[in-house]
């Protein structure tokens, strides 16, 4: 077990978002966290990543380093892609030569050209920026990675490529991950296990493992799982909620 959330609850200005959340993430396990919009997925991720203090509950961390990949790339505009990837390493005081090596390796892994490494974020396309953000996360050799809807803003084709990249990296580096998404198909593609946060603040609506391992599921299998689950009452909030808002 890498991380355990125990009876976590959080309130913003007195408004309870959720309470009594228990979740443990095992070593090498990728957990997808889904839920209707506004249910506190990102808040829960930020608590798990230590970016905000929960109002209630405790966190048990059993790892050295984590990394967060945000919805927006959040690159420093005044640093080149190379320096952005090295940022996490620099903040933990890794030497310059080692940093340079790690950057080259991670950049190649996420499919960035060596030529693009000396460009500033403004000179890169949206997809390349998100690749840089993923490389920056992977560069610190994290034991656990927190993904906060990282590919929500990229187009469908690129989304697949980036998902495959994460699946591949997770299998190779054996990191654990908490992957927040609102897309059930994405959750089924990348994760071992799926938890759905309910919209009314009453903890998880469901917690189930996904058949097969990420990367080996065919598109057909992913599609079938999503089809079956979309009729499942446990997910009705995820689908009906959207319809209620639309009407």
């Amino acid at each position, binding site marked *: 077990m890498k991380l355990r959330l125990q009876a976590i609850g959080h309130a913003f200005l007195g408004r309870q978002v959720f309470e009594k959340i228990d979740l443990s993430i095992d070593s090498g396990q990728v957990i997808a966290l889904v839920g209707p919009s506004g249910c506190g997925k990102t808040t829960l991720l930020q608590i798990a990543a230590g*970016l905000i203090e929960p109002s209630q509950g405790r966190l048990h961390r059993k790892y050295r380093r984590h990394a*967060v990949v945000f919805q927006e790339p959040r690159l*420093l505009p005044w*640093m080149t892609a190379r320096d952005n990837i090295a940022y996490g390493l620099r*903040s933990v005081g890794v030497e310059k030569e080692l940093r340079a090596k790690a950057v080259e390796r991670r950049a190649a892994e996420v499919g960035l050209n060596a030529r693009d490494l000396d460009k500033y974020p403004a000179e890169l396309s949206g997809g390349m920026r998100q690749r840089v953000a993923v490389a920056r996360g992977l560069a610190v050799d994290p034991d656990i990675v927190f993904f906060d809807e990282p590919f929500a803003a990229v187009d469908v084709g690129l989304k697949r490529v980036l998902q495959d990249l994460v699946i591949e990296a997770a299998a190779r580096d054996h990191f654990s991950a908490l992957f927040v998404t609102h897309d059930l198909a994405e959750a089924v593609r990348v994760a071992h296990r799926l938890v759905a946060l309910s919209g009314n603040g009453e903890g998880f609506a469901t917690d189930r493992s996904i058949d097969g391992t990420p990367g080996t599921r065919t598109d057909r299998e992913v599609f079938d799982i999503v089809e079956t689950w979309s009729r499942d009452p446990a997910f009705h909030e995820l689908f009906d909620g959207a319809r209620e808002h639309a009407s």
Partner: protein
Amino acid sequence: MREVAPGLVFLGWLGRTIWSAWAGAAGLCCLTAAWQAGHEFYGSFILPSPLEALEALAALIREPTFAEAAKETAKRSAAGFVLAVGFGTIAGAIAGYSFAAMRLMRPIITVVLGVPPIAWIVLALVWFGSTGGSAIMTVVVAGLPISFAGGLEGVVTRDRALDAMARSFGASAWMRFRTVTAPHLVSYLFPAWTTTAGTAWKVTVMAELLSNSGGIGGELATARALFDIPRVMALIVAVVACVLATEYLLIHPLRDWLGRWREAGLPWGVKR
């Protein structure tokens, strides 16, 4: 391609800067033409011609006392600039981070802004007498609020999402300041610094003139007493040249160097 770049990039930048000086020179020529027209209308006593002023300037530069006076003024305005910018920026940044400090300091700055610089000169004369101290103090008082405002705005508008990113990687407060806040802050500080650099020269000359404490201001007082108008014009041209030199030789190159990343985002053809 980018590996060989540093030298070429510098040459390219230098070339562009010098080339853009043409536009500036054209503007200055228009001003000189107007000056000449004024001279022809009012005559040499009221407004000496640009040529007379330049001749007076050439004579002035050859005088050893002028070099002394200019050095004195430069020292005073530099000291005033450094103190104003240093204290103003630090106080502004602190106010940006702490609401309590901001609430306390804002009214003070408003009061300081409200007092006319001429009143500060009178006070400084009482406190420091006819020394450089009064000029320096006046520059500090005149320049500090601008840097304060720049520092405050820069820190307040820092990108909190980037700050959260840096925290998620365990970056220390100092590293976050250096890598996230400071580069953003700089874009707010440069306008303030440019203004302060100009003000520093002008206020120093004014304080020197009124406190009779030597420097270019002292020279100006003497020239006025002697009704040597071409010399007055020459001194004015010398001060303006100093202001321009500070801005274009010191501040602009520094700003361009720190803002390289900004230029990278511009499409080809829009650059400069």
